[in-house]
């Protein structure tokens, strides 16, 4: 073994995020004291970010199978059959900590990383989404973070030429010190050309392609596994720097190589770079790895083995090739002017052996390290149930229509056009006109076919805080409804679990509760989890974020021409509400924005009702008996109707049906399992639904240029639109 300049002191062990117990395990596995490079490798492999040590026990309980699932969690991304020999491959991943420290590069490299997870598996990326959560608009950093994150996502996604078609953006002071940037990529591949990460065949060459390795991002995975303190900004050097141009070349080169027969296994270098990709590939294939670090393309001089193994430089991939195909593969990467280097070979030693300048600098057993990866059953306490709030205990507002204006222009419900107009949402020529951002779901045609994919991301963190189980159910149900509202058959989800410090039993209780809710909803709705990501320690100075299990959902439209949007279509169309309106006001946007209260219980989710009503909606769209549909969520029924008026630039006249709750609860309560639809033939639709036992009621008709509610007055679509559109641009340009 070579010299190890740094002595392994307790301080060094601690700074590598390893506990006393974990270090004892390291000694057991190694049978000796590790050197600094080896310690660094243990540190990243066992970090929360890479090992899922706090969450694994619970993630295992999620349903991951269905006849249409080709590959569930555990690979780079989930794979789902969409018929005709094609598959959709998708995943959502967080880049929270880096985006707070350096918003542009943090967000940009988040997009780059998730794109690589998807094209690594053989898919051409077809669309991106992103779910963003920022601190209070009044917080001095928020504006700067919004500007930087949006520019970073746009700067990367626009350049690689993948349309960004959807997402969400909310504000809450719990995110003041920990913003959330969750990026999702959806790609399409042929089912006989899906690539996995397992490395097999002793003697086969290991090839490094893409950008050179620099000193950026060292210990990014460890940073993402601790809480922030005031001096976290000193961690800026650990944020990686992205180059979308190289990523675009890497996509094209990898897809070109994947069209040949050269690749045995392929894995992107994400968190923990060369270390984790090398380990994962070898561990899955049951082989050993010899790497010669002298052959790693390097951007800087005098890099140490420690730095090379822990660098998180972007736009890099590791592959195992079939022997004899090296030249064919090299020619493709040279055409795209990317580095291509044979950096080692597979062995049957079961060890990862690293050499540098003629010396062995690390020698680690692969299986023991992977098998001994910590798994904790962290103590947790269930979240205490909140008290339910009756709508009758809330003073009704003086003016329902003025309240509607206020809600449509509040930060969470205001138009996010300022954001998505900075994203190219049409490049590649498959984004459906009604599938552009701003609707229930983004819709992108499966290239060269009449099929389309619908995609959405959803979560209501305030519900999850009040009742994690109900909040988990609701996040999945809302994603399912958003897909359903376009006519798509929901296929599967990816879950991006963003939580505080799991070492606190109440935070762990939020995690456990949300998982339980997600599980129940996935089972009831046949909507399995095929990929995901966990981001813990989203805390600053001991203050955690709202529990935020972001759900990314994907659905399939067999005939894209039958998809519908949410905008009103024709004068005289009947407006109908499907689902029961009980006026649940607890945890509503109304309660928060108008009453200044964030309490109560979230609306209960009845999964059997969700299923039944959603299946009915989808059938109506399939039979073309309805021409617009919007799921009722934040802001309630009247907000939903107004959003349909805004999207269609048409007014309406509606009236509150009899036997319904007080006007403000009816208009703004957030009961679940509801949709607003429009149809030419209301009577028939209503009688059919009633025959099936579905709660349904006529509300009025599409007409004129005002949104008008009988006995409560009206407001013009233009006024609503001005209020809805002006908040975010006004906020960003003070």
């Amino acid at each position, binding site marked *: 073994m070579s010299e190890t300049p740094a002595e392994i002191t307790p301080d060094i062990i601690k700074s590598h995020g390893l506990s006393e117990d974990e270090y004892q395990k390291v000694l057991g596995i190694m049978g000796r004291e590790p050197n600094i490079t080896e310690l660094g490798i243990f540190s990243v492999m066992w970090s929360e970010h890479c090992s899922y040590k706090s969450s694994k026990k619970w993630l295992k309980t999620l349903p991951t199978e269905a006849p249409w699932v080709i590959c569930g969690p555990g690979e780079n991304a989930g794979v789902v059959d969409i018929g005709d020999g094609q598959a959709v491959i998708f995943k959502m991943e967080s880049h929270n900590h880096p985006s707070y420290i350096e918003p542009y590069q943090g967000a940009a490299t988040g997009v780059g990383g998730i794109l690589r997870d998807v094209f690594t598996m053989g898919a051409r990326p077809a669309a991106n989404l992103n779910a963003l959560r920022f601190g209070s608009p009044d917080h001095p950093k928020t504006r700067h973070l919004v500007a930087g994150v949006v520019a970073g996502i746009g700067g990367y996604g626009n350049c690689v030429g993948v349309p960004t078609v959807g997402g969400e953006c909310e504000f809450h002071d719990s995110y003041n010190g920990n913003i959330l940037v969750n990026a999702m990529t959806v790609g399409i591949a042929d089912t006989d050309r899906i690539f996995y990460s397992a490395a097999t065949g002793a003697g086969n060459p290991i090839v490094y392609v893409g950008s050179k390795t620099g000193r950026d991002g060292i210990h990014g995975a460890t940073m993402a596994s601790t809480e922030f303190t005031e001096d976290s900004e000193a961690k800026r050097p650990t944020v990686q720097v992205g180059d979308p141009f190289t990523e675009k070349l890497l996509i094209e080169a990898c897809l070109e190589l994947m069209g040949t027969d050269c690749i045995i296994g392929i894995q992107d270098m994400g968190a923990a770079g060369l270390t984790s990709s090398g380990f994962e590939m070898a561990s899955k294939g049951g082989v050993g790895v010899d790497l010669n670090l002298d052959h790693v393309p390097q951007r800087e001089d005098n890099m140490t083995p420690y730095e090379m193994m822990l660098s998180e430089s972007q736009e890099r991939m590791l592959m195992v090739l079939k022997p004899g195909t090296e030249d064919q593969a090299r020619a493709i990467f040279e055409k795209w002017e990317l580095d291509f280097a044979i950096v080692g070979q597979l062995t049957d030693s079961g060890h990862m052996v690293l050499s540098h300048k003629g010396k062995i600098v690390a020698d680690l057993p692969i299986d023991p390290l992977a098998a001994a990866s910590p798994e904790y059953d962290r103590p947790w306490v269930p979240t205490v149930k909140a008290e339910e709030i009756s709508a009758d205990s809330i003073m009704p507002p003086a003016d329902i229509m003025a309240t509607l204006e206020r809600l449509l222009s509040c930060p969470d419900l205001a138009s996010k056009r300022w954001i998505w107009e900075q994203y190219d949402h049409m490049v590649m*020529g498959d984004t459906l006109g009604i599938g552009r951002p701003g609707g229930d779901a983004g819709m992108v045609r499966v290239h060269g076919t009449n099929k389309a994919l619908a995609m959405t991301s959803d979560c209501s963190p305030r519900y999850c805080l009040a009742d994690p189980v109900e909040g988990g159910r609701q996040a999945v149900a809302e994603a399912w409804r958003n897909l359903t509202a376009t006519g798509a058959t929901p296929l599967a989800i990816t879950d991006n679990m963003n939580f505080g410090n799991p070492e606190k039993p109440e935070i762990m209780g939020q995690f456990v509760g949300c998982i339980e809710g997600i599980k129940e909803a996935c089972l009831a709705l046949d909507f399995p989890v095929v990929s995901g990501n966990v981001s813990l320690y989203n805390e600053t100075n001991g203050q955690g974020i709202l529990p935020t299990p972001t759900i990314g959902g994907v659905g399939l439209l067999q005939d894209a021409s039958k998809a519908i949007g949410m905008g009103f279509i024709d004068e005289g169309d009947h407006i109908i509400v499907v689902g029961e309106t009980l006026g649940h006001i607890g945890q509503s946007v109304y309660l928060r924005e108008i009453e200044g209260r964030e309490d109560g219980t979230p609306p209960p989710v009845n999964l059997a009702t969700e299923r039944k009503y959603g299946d009915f909606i989808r059938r109506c769209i399939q039979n073309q008996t309805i021409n617009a549909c919007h799921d009722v969520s934040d802001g309630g029924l009247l907000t939903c109707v107004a959003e349909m008026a805004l999207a269609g630039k048409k007014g309406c006249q509606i009236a509150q049906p009899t036997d319904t709750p007080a006007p403000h609860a009816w208009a703004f309560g957030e009961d679940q399992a509801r949709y607003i639809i429009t149809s030419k033939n209301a009577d028939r639709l209503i009688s059919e639904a009633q025959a099936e036992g579905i709660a349904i009621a006529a509300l009025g008709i599409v007409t004129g240029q005002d949104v008008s509610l009988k006995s409560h007055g009206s407001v013009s679509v233009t006024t609503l639109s001005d209020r809805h559109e002006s908040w975010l641009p006004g906020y960003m340009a003070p």
Partner: protein
Amino acid sequence: MKACVIVFPGSNCDRDLQIALRDAMGSEPDMVWHGDSTFGDVDLIAVPGGFSYGDYLRAGAMAAKSPVMREITRRAEKGVPVLGVCNGFQILTESGLLPGALMRNADLKYVCKDVHLKVEATDTPFTQGYENESVLRIPIAHHDGNYFANDDVLNELEDSNRIAFRYTDVRGERSPQANPNGSRHDIAGIVNKARNVLGMMPHPERLADPSLGGSDGKAMFTGLVEALS
């Protein structure tokens, strides 16, 4: 009619143009790699949008020096029609085939949205499929679309009727609100003196199929096929 689409490293609207041309021509355009110093005889050369060479140095600046651009310049001088869309327009100004420059948008932000354009010159192979003065809805998607040229150049463009497209509102009226990027004289697209080279920031290929939300871009491609077949 034969056409080719040039592919630079970083081009990302090459496939979109390929499809719009294929749909109009009923045959496949050739895809030509930037490193090729020559290519087969074609009736139309299309330079697509995207981020050639990552927009490093300046949008279009590096592509303008690539081997294939020397050949494109030679063919353009012989009268072969050349269409540059978005980054293609930037490349054509950087290579001197069209006058002026495309600067950072006036509000400094990337912008992707539908805008309205008025067709102001229909005596070119690119625009002969449109009625003069018609108003089109076409998307833009760029960070550097703010057309600049000095007064002499602008006067010459105006006097020789070389402004093919101008940003307007839906009624065809010019206004600062209808200009999405600060372009002088609301210029969205221009032709060269010989009227065989067109550069435009908006993307006609993105709205040439009704299921994508509109088809106002289609007449450019069907018009080209009519003019060049």
